[in-house]
């Protein structure tokens, strides 16, 4: 767990990651907040807050008395959202840093080609 971000946000992000990489399939049950709390050794209320963020977001849905499940279509929504953030959070800093270091556009694309080929 990182020190600089709220735990609930980190819990939410972790569940999102599990949905995106397929660990949590759509319509499958996610662990209970108490299980999250025990596993990460965090306060159950904080874990619940992280889960509830995703419920409010429509990524998860509640079945009364049973638990939380991954909403159908959640993966597609999350991937689309992450793609949007990708440009801002990853691409732009790379381009800015490259410019600072005098790496040309073609050099940068070659580097990306080489890295992805590996």
């Amino acid at each position, binding site marked *: 767990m990182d*020190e600089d*971000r*709220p735990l*609930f946000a980190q819990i939410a992000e972790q569940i999102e990651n599990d949905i995106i990489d397929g660990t949590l399939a759509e319509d499958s049950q996610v662990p209970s907040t108490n299980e999250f709390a*025990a596993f990460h*050794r965090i*306060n159950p*209320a*904080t874990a619940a*807050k992280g889960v509830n963020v995703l419920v409010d977001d429509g990524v998860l849905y509640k079945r009364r008395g049973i638990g939380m499940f991954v909403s159908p279509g959640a993966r597609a929504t999350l991937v689309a959202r992450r793609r949007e953030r990708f440009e801002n959070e990853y691409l732009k800093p790379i381009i800015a840093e490259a410019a600072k270091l005098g790496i040309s556009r073609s050099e940068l694309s070659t580097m990306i080609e080489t890295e992805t080929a590996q």
Partner: protein
Amino acid sequence: MTAVIEVEHLTKRFGRFTAIDDLSFSVQEHGIYGLLGRNGAGKTTLMQLLTGQQFATSGDIRLFGERPVENSSVLDRVCSIKESQRYPDEYQAHHVLTSAPWFFPRWDAALAGQLVADFRLPVKRRIKKLSRGQVSALGVIVGLASRAPLTFFDEPYLGLDAVARQIFYDRLLADYAEHPRTVLLSTHLIDEVSNLLEHVIVIDDGKIVIDAEADALRGSATTVSGRTAAVESFSAGRNVLHSENVGGLSSAVISGLGPDDRATAIGEGLDLSPVSLQQLVVATTTSRATEWKESA
């Protein structure tokens, strides 16, 4: 949300010394609260006032809506565990485990037995002969097994090793999840418990300096470091909790930095690093000492 503890303008003086200075705060039902602060900040006195063991000089305390002093209907729902707890002479741990259930209607004997095994507590040995950690374990067992709706742990684990402390944290979380209650935990091992806490109250010199949700405090402050001139010009007009300088370098703990502020700082060549809850508490409770040092 119902308030389990309501404190208004609470003051406690011992002679000329003011241990608790006009405190007001409340604690909501079902939560794990951290009461943090330096030794001598007033944590123990506050807990003893809340549990009716000390008498307030002025101000008002309500537990479950009633005053706790000499009030059975309140005290029956309260369990207070303190590091310095005295036990009757010649008592063995099993005497405590036999008598404690009479005072806690929700006592869970199975849990107590499990914890005795977890902590490897020798129950047939005189308490005087137990190690510091074993005495602490006994307190922790009573505190958890009591299932009291309002449980106070005042520095409960002096002498407990890292493994035993982890057992305490895990058992506390597991049992709390199944049997929600209100727990007020005072400790100086802040980093260890910061993830367990839902709410944090920091007191210093008998006054509250932080009263906030633990998660909201995460990332609420940032350490900005770099050349003194740059740090000082960036700090100006911002909320500086604590600052230090060595040679030409300075660092400042600043709260409430937004993304734009961060971008500005990075633009000025300053380094940013996150502040843990422990660092935040240190920063907020040492400021006075630092000021004194600087003016001296």
